[in-house]
């Protein structure tokens, strides 16, 4: 682990060590502890040693110098670290020079980053270490609230039923698996609900969810809940419109999923300040009623209220009435 910590292992060694650490709870714990310690050490202030203390120390240490086996610093760590840094810089510079995608200019002076949207089938280039993890081997639980960034979605082969979610945490990670895999679902739910920095990323995530989870075999109440949460909490109207659009396209395979969708739509219809969101919500409820799905009393009451609400947009009122006209015996 010290070698891993000091970047003294080659790429294969690092990969092997990481794999072991992930599967071994004891090593995992120790690794976290070492990383924390390393970080704390890095953060400690450097204090000059008072001269008298240094003199005393040297005086005590020097007479024994002859019998002490000299500490020979293993050159590999530093050398490899330097080499890695050179490779990284050279690779980064090479890609920066070759690429045609956007070059990011930092506001405090130009700096090259690897940020670029991933196109389907396009290989991923990154100057960070990249790891590919099969979703099946991961715990579906996401601990804490990791700050994940640069989320991208990959479907290299649409026929193989596998998708990939790539993102940056402390390193660039791609999680691959079936859309039905619990780890993938949890990850997407997390991305939908916990990426406050960029509404674009969330919009892309919603579009991806719509494309992938519209298939009845992938219907999942957790995804529905996540979209409902976006619809309820998101400030960005464009994202909310996307969320309501997607919600109505997801198949109501599970009762709880249908309930969550309905509740989210009712909430949006009642409370969303944007008339377009309300229009889409009422249209979705009308479609649900039309397709034979039952509307509970709360939904009926909300639609009733909307239809009669004099200061509501007339189109919303008419759509509410149309939705109510589809209600049949349950």
């Amino acid at each position, binding site marked *: 682990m010290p070698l891993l910590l000091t970047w003294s292992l080659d790429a294969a060694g690092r990969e092997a060590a990481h794999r072991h650490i992930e599967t071994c709870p004891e090593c995992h714990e120790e690794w976290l502890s070492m990383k924390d310690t390393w970080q704390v050490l890095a953060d400690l202030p450097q204090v000059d040693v008072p001269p008298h203390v240094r003199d005393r120390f040297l005086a005590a240490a020097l007479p024994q110098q002859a019998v002490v086996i000299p500490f020979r610093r293993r050159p590999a760590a530093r050398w490899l670290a330097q080499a890695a840094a050179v490779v990284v810089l050279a690779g980064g510079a090479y890609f920066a020079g070759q690429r045609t995608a956007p070059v990011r200019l930092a*506001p405090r002076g130009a700096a090259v980053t690897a940020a670029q949207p991933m196109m389907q089938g396009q290989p991923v280039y990154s100057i960070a270490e990249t790891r590919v993890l099969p979703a099946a081997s991961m715990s579906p639980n996401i601990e804490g609230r990791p700050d994940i960034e640069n989320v991208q979605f990959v479907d290299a082969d649409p026929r193989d039923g596998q998708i990939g979610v790539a993102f940056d945490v402390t390193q660039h990670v791609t999680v691959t698996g079936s859309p039905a895999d619990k780890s993938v679902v949890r990850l997407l739910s997390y991305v939908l609900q916990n990426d406050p920095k960029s509404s674009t990323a969330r919009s892309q995530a919603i579009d991806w969810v719509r494309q992938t989870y519209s298939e009845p075999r992938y219907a999942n109440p957790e995804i529905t809940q996540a979209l409902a949460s976006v619809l309820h909490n998101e400030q960005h*109207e464009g994202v909310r419109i996307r969320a309501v659009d997607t919600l109505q396209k997801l198949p109501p395979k599970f009762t709880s999923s249908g309930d969550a969708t309905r509740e989210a739509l009712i909430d949006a219809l009642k409370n969303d300040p*944007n008339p377009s969101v309300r229009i889409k919500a009422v249209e979705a409820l009308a479609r649900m009623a039309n397709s034979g799905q039952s509307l509970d009393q709360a939904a009926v009451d909300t639609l009733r209220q909307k239809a009669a609400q004099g200061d509501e*947009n*007339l189109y919303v009122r008419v759509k509410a009435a149309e939705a*109510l006209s589809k209600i049949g015996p349950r």
Partner: protein
Amino acid sequence: MTRTIRCVATVVALFCATAASAAKFGTTERFVREFRLNTNGTLWIDNPFGNVEIVGGNVANVTVRAQKTVTGIDDAAIREALDQTQLTTTGSPQTLIIRTLLPAARTERWMSVVHYAVSVPSTVHVKISSQMSDRLRVANVSGGANIKNVNGAIVIENVTGPVVADTVNGDITYDPSGSPTNGVQLSSVNGQIEVAVTPEASFQWIGKTIRGDFRTNLPVSGRMSGTTFRGGINGSRGATITTATMMGNVFVLKKGTKAEQTQSVRSIVGTAAAGGVGPAILVKSFHATLVDGDFTFNTPLGNVSVGQVRGRARVTTRAGEVGLGIVLGECTVTSFGGPLSFGDIVGFLNARTSAGDVVINSARAGGFAATDGGMIRVLHAGAAMTLRSGGGDILVANANGSINAETRSGDVTITVAPQVRRSPIYAKTSQGNVVLNVSPQFAADIDATLITADEDAEIRSDFAGLAVRRDQVGQKTRIRFTGKVNGGGDRVELFAEDGTIQITGESRPVVISPSLP
């Protein structure tokens, strides 16, 4: 002989099968109970599924006749239905509550309905709550009635006390047997309302409808104001009847006459605004594949769909969806609510909606599009366009002229056509991201401003040589990116708050999502 035997056998088999299926799929239970209720008491019946008929008379007690009918897929389901459809009675001599209890989660295995026929002292007040029924009827009651349901007709006859009836999809019929003496409120979302009174009955009448009409064959006076009528029948004396139906008609009839014998109140009385006669028809939709010439259409409520207009198009609707395929001339569309979609608009486009998305496949001569709330998507802008959204994304996929786009909240994404080397661009979002895609040879004077609370936020640009300035504005950071690219050109002004700004110098296909209809 053989033929006779065959016929008899068929009849017997049919009879047996019918009897067997009847025995298997349904059964009925009947109950009769009597309750004491004070003469000024309240009877409340809460029956989700089934008819209720309450008739007042010169009786001392309340007599309830209930018929529980259940159907199921098998005997076990029927037993379960009988078991789980419970009739309960609670309350006191002042308030009697009769309730049909059903499990909260319905099963597909069985169904049950309960019909009530109740006789009450005529002075009591009655309340009925229902979801689905064929009919709820209250008659000969002087204490008033309060009736609410979702589906099914409501009939109120000779009820002289205050009446409140509220249904979603049912029709309401009210016959006070003379002039109404108390306030009456009748409302239906999708049904129609019919009030039948004696020819000399006089009352005040407030009517509201969106899609329907007010019709009567009695002397009426009053005024229309938008979708509301305020006036009266036979001099507007006495109690007030309020009739509100969203989508249905309201009829006030002489007793014994028919709806066909009425005329529209709009054609009789004036409108508040103009002092003239109101429009006889409220709802007007238009659907055509081709209009050979100019097309002008104005409707208070209705959808418009035209495949091709070989002239100018001018459409106005207070609420409705507008879809125009090809318009060879100028195109002006105004909707006070509803999505707008356009195919290929050859002339100048001017499109506004108070709520809803605006989708434009091609605006060859450019134009203006605005929504108070919703997305605006333009696949091809042949000339300068101004786009405004009160909240929602704006996307221009192929801009060949200047673009002036502003949204209160949402992303603005503009892709300038690869052959365009210079063009003024203005893009602003008060909450969201701005993305500008131009060709690497695009020449412009860039002025991009990002105001953000995110310390890591930055303006991304493929073009080098732009000056960056960062300062603090209150709690937020303002990042300003200015300078000339490719020697300078038209002004490109980008502004985003709480998002990012990205300027890319490459031709990149734009993915329209969600996909266009």
